[in-house]
């Protein structure tokens, strides 16, 4: 089958339709960091691992401005 045949183009359109239809079904995961720092053991975890602390802080800073979902 030639790459520019109508059937192949149709398949690509269908794929694009699929991706379009699915795009609104994706979202960033909800991470509920509210008050988490008060929970037992969590402060030690965040002290132990700087990356986890940074992500926790970033999520709380951006809680009213969600990051743009990366569909990749």
């Amino acid at each position, binding site marked *: 089958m030639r790459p520019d045949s109508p059937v192949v183009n149709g398949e690509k359109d269908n794929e694009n339709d699929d991706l379009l239809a699915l795009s609104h079904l*994706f979202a960033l995961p909800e991470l509920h960091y509210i008050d988490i720092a008060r929970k037992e053991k969590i402060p030690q975890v965040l002290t132990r691992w700087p990356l986890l602390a940074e992500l926790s802080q970033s999520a709380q800073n951006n809680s009213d401005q969600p990051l743009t979902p990366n569909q990749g």
Partner: protein
Amino acid sequence: MPVIALQGIRGGCGVTSVTAALAWTLAQSGEKVLAIDFSPANLLRLHFNMPYDSPRGWATAVRAGEGWEQGAMRYHSHLDFLPFGQLPAIEQTQVYCDWQDNLTKIDNTGVYDWVLLDTPIDQPALAAQALSIADHTFTLLHADSQSHVRLHQQAVPVESHYLVNQFMPGSQLQQDILLLWQQSLPRLLPLILHRDEAMAESLAAKRPVGEMAPLSKSCQEMQALASWCQIHLRVGQK
């Protein structure tokens, strides 16, 4: 007939092994199960003892102008599977099949109690086809830093459940990340799958873990996962 899509938050999370093991475990409890491979890697079939050299599968059949059903295989009386099939790389992205229509046909047969979808993370078009027909999604995670970063920046299917796989309780970091998720990540399943050599061996043995190693920790954990599915997902379908 609940349809569950299983997908990793990245590659290598063990989705195919868990799909095969869950399908087998549900079938063991007397339910009829169909497992469908949406990944061109075409590995699910090897968990069900299919010869490596066989090109058979739904995508292969579609590319050959035949019906997707031609790719179906039977493992035992309660467990059927639909391999993706072996296709050259250039053809793998050119497979289109109306899975909504296919699923309606599958449902209308009245044969299956469960349909499980082995869903790739690196093939957006094929993943979209799988996710569009799923009632429920399990996103598999390793309790590691990379999965944690991805949870902050990578879109996942809305209302996905999360399932921790290959957990290593001896790791301080894994313990800490699991604790953090248990406190902050909604819909994290209340059961986790531990790292178990039996699960790794199951692919080499070409059999689902529950069949190959019925006394293993993985087999017990798959029974817990199957029970969770039966309690929580049987009703309230899409």
